[in-house]
């Protein structure tokens, strides 16, 4: 009896040992399979320019990771599907990626508009949802614990610009401002906060109107802004066509504000330049957390690889590329730390207060999933060549150059 029990004990110990060995190999059946990452991107529709820039960012990250041994020794494979910029389709896409394609991880789409429904799907299935373009308050308003935005929270986008305006001597400080904004969850919080801060600083609001994001005729709105002769224009734009239409109408009306800042559009590098014309870019400003000239070693290396693959100049690299790349970097660090692809473990790790690195700088998530370490900058196109896109604010930052103010005349 004793011998029989001993053999059973030995067999049990052997099986346990085998289990440990298999576990150490990392879920043995999958050990050599690539890690699949599901992503829905706007490859057509209104956000297609941003969606394809995101695709480049994700693919650039994946190719870098794969050329350096992958994650946990496994290659990374991106499963990218198009949502045509539709909030309905993005819901379908993530459901399919998770339930049918059974991807290991998911990365976020472009824009808050699509991030909100997508994060709910990911939450339903317990997936961590790390994204780079859903920084508006609406993305964090659902109380989900799985959403993490690696970029700058958008509500504070304009704060460095407001501080700059406040710092100007009284003789140069603008006294009036116009705030046209599209009805988009990304732009409205940005513009509202800038307006309240500037009003508190004594800058009178002479125009404040919301227009439909799907509008195709911006001329009457822009002409009304021009008619106010506001000293500065703070435009709540989501894309290049909106900015381009306003700039064109201002030029046609011979209206040249002292400062022109847009929530999005001028950050799209060569896409912005080709639409508005290089000569018109001079002085246009945009808030953000990154530019192609960002003084960060990882960023410089990424920009170098990007230009080697796609051509162009650092100023021409769309900020979306860096946002997408940062998503990959953050998830990579979480998985490597946990030595596991468990989404629950990733969520736990990202909520632990750990500080991570990315091409956009440091990343540390607060309880809502916003990046508390992100630093907001203001960038400005300078000169008429369409190749100089400088960080200008905050002026205390050593990498900021002098702001061109007042803005030169259009096309000068």
């Amino acid at each position: 009896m004793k011998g029989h029990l001993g053999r059973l004990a030995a067999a049990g110990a052997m099986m346990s040992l085998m289990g440990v060995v298999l576990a150490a190999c990392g879920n043995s059946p999958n050990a050599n399979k690539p890690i699949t990452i599901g992503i829905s991107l706007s490859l057509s529709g209104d956000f297609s320019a941003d969606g394809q820039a995101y695709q480049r960012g994700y693919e650039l990250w994946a190719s870098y990771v794969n050329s350096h041994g992958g994650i946990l020794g496994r290659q990374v494979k991106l499963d990218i599907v198009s949502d045509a910029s539709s909030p309905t389709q993005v819901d379908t896409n993530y459901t399919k990626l998770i339930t049918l394609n059974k991807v290991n991880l998911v990365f976020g789409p472009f824009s808050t508009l699509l991030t909100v429904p997508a994060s709910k799907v990911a939450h339903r299935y317990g997936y961590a949802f790390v994204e780079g373009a859903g920084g508006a308050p609406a993305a964090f308003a659902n109380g989900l614990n799985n959403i993490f935005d690696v970029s700058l929270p958008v509500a504070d986008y304009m704060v460095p610009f407001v501080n700059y305006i406040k710092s100007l001597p009284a003789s140069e400080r603008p006294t009036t401002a116009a705030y046209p904004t599209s009805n988009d969850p990304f732009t409205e919080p940005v513009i509202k906060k800038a307006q309240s801060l500037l009003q508190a600083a004594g800058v009178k609001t002479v125009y404040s109107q919301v227009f439909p994001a799907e509008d195709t005729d911006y001329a009457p709105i822009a002409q009304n802004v021009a008619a106010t002769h506001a000293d500065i224009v703070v435009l709540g734009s989501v894309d290049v066509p909106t900015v381009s239409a306003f700039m064109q109408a201002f030029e046609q009306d011979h209206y040249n504000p002292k400062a022109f800042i847009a929530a999005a559009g001028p950050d799209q590098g060569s896409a912005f330049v080709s639409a508005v014309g290089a000569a018109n870019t001079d002085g246009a400003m945009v808030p953000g957390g990154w530019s192609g000239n960002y003084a960060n070693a990882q960023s410089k290396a990424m920009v170098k690889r990007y230009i080697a693959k796609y051509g162009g100049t650092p100023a021409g690299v769309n900020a979306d590329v860096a946002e997408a790349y940062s998503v990959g970097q953050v998830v990579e660090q979480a998985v490597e730390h946990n030595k596991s692809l468990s989404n629950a473990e990733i969520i736990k790790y990202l909520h632990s207060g750990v500080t991570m690195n990315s091409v956009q700088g440091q990343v540390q998530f607060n309880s809502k999933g916003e990046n508390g370490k992100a630093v907001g900058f203001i960038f400005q196109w300078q000169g008429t060549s369409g190749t100089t896109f400088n960080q200008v604010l905050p002026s205390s930052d050593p990498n900021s150059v002098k702001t061109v103010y007042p803005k030169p005349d259009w096309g000068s």
Partner: protein
Amino acid sequence: MNLTSLYQGLIDGVLTGAVYALMAAGLTLIFGVMDIINIAQGVFVVLAAYLSYVLAVHFGVDLFIGILITMPTLFLLGIAVDWAFIRRLPARDRTTMSILVTYAVAIVVEGVLSVIFGVNYVQLHGWYVIRSIYVLGFYLPYIYVFGFGMAVFLMGAIYLMLYRTRFGRSIRASLQNRPAARLVGINVDRVATLTFGIGVAVTAAGGMVFGATTAFNPNSGYDLISRLLAIVILGGLGSMAGAMAAAISMLVVEDVVASVWSPLWSEVVFFAALVVVLTLRPQGLFGRSFSRAQ
């Protein structure tokens, strides 16, 4: 109410409305003669803008001169689309099927444009795009003034073609009674093919002005098509004068509301007005209330 804003809205509406009429003219002509709802019209506008872009950027051709090349090119494209897809539709479900077929054409054209040009936005440039003329206290952008003139000229030319030429009579006969037109010796299929070509060709002019006033990419056509359909329905399907009147009405209403009230309400007010007009006059402003013999 600020009268200056009101006048500015009126001026903007008339000038831009004429350009929209140019974009919608082909749509209404094609439906009037062929019972085809050309969902691809928005994408054809974008295609026209890209053709102008290629001529301007790579060959230095002025945008307005370029229309002399883009218009025949689009005419041939229209003929090809009709030959390849439209004329093969069964007569019984022609209108319904045309929506699906032309949507497929739109997807294909959009895909080809994306492959060739990418999805980054571009815009057409020229001295008249950024300059304006100052008249009675208002800046009138040259591009809109020239676009308005071109719209009036082309719409007038189409009108003359329809009402002063033998081919125009064939078109109108086909529009009113297809079997009877056949009986009097009109080659209705040939008329339909040429009409589809003309309908697409007209978008060359509208597309150029669209590309000069809006940054565009291959996907930009989808934002346009709902507006163009609203214009031709309000004007009366098949009516050129209706397209002109409806486009100007639509843009005047939208621009005035945006100027004196709020941009958010501009489309709402227009579509509310559209519903009222169609309730009172289901055939549209200039449409006829007969049902066509097939």
